[in-house]
């Protein structure tokens, strides 16, 4: 008599002991129904990137503005050359809140055999999409990452245990893990904003500390009009006007996360 591991796992799955995952197997669609519905009132922050105005220079300025303001470490070119990392680690350890990448990488799933020439190799400015249904929030075991009522997907660094489930969950690779103390890799520390510690995940927070003071996000301010920021629920907001007037695309909308960064191409 007895039960082997395989049978036990099967039984556990049936009894719902496997948690949400097992639940999903038994009653498909249950989890999908539980995620947040789009709200129509209040504040819903969103960003529109006007790719016609976004040159590489403007993108670099946006990235610089964000990264210097938020003490984002630069693992690619550390201030002290002695701290330089190997090529492999540079790639793996890179911390990015806002970065740029080519169309082919950013818009996976949009491929066509014959497409608009201009899109080929076009550099897009990428950042956290502050999704309506953020998968990172669903998988976070400590609720260190959560969605604010105004749509910002927030990080609570005090609660983050560095499990990196959110990184696995995010389909946009918008989250980075601190593999080591970032402070030596920050060229000039902004004393008014905290740095991060080793072992936490960080990401773009849509400059929520600037929004609280009634300012625009740093990248929007530095972009000189290439980035448009505003409240989606407000009829006359600049984002709504931009979305009304232009055709826009979003990254991987077919995944159902409902990303809120739009690109005018």
């Amino acid at each position, binding site marked *: 008599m007895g039960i082997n591991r395989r049978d036990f796992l099967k039984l556990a799955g049936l009894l719902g002991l496997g948690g949400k995952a097992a639940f999903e197997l038994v009653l498909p669609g249950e989890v999908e129904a539980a995620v947040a519905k789009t709200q129509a009132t209040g504040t819903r922050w969103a960003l529109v990137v006007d790719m016609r105005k976004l040159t590489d220079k403007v993108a670099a300025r946006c990235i610089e503005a964000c990264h210097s303001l938020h003490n984002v470490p630069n693992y690619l070119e550390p201030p002290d050359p002695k701290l330089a990392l190997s090529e492999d680690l540079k790639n793996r350890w890179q911390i990015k809140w806002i970065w740029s990448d080519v169309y082919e990488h950013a818009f996976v799933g949009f491929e066509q055999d014959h497409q608009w020439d201009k899109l080929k190799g076009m550099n897009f400015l990428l950042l956290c999409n502050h999704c309506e249904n953020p998968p990172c929030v669903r998988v976070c075991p400590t609720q260190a990452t*959560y969605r*604010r009522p105004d749509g910002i997907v*927030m990080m*609570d*660094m*005090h609660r983050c245990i560095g499990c990196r489930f959110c990184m696995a969950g995010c389909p946009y690779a918008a989250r980075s893990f601190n593999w080591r103390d970032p402070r030596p890799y920050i060229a000039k*520390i902004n*004393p*008014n904003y*905290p*740095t*991060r*510690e080793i072992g936490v995940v960080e990401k773009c927070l849509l400059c*929520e500390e600037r929004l*609280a003071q009634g300012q625009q996000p740093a990248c929007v301010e530095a972009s000189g009009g290439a980035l448009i920021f505003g409240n989606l629920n407000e009829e006359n907001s600049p984002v709504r006007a931009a979305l009304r007037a232009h055709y826009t695309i979003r990254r991987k909308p077919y995944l159902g996360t409902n990303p809120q960064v739009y690109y005018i191409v």
Partner: protein
Amino acid sequence: MADYKNEFGWFAPKPTVEKKIYSLKAVAVGLGIFLVVFGAPLLLNMGQVHPVPQPSLDTPAIQKLAEKERQCVEPTEWMRANHMQLLWDWREQVVRTGERYYTTSQGKKVLASLSNNCMECHSNKSQFCDQCHNYVAVVPNCWGCHLPKEQNVAKAEGK
């Protein structure tokens, strides 16, 4: 029956083993070394009196304030006992609810921020914070992320 013994010895009476500490000398020496090492901090500090920390309130930002306004967000006695709870509450309030201001018991609105409010007046972290924390061996992990600004302030004052 009790004496019945098959080849496995299942029903054999339990063999008696003499109870004795083997190599008593080595054990005693090891135990002695352990006690000395373990007790060294206690023995070395026995009878010594460590001065009670006197956190310094003498910073330029505090000196600049008028005598009447020279107080923290809450009364000093209360702050002494509850500053950790206050900081914990601020942290929850600011990060989780997005409410950045704290209303003091006197009805004043202050910015709920360790780096951008507390450390503005108490810019002398080593004199103000560390003294007591070291004395009671408390290591708050705030400083892993939040910047004490101490060096910046010292630089600005030309020290």
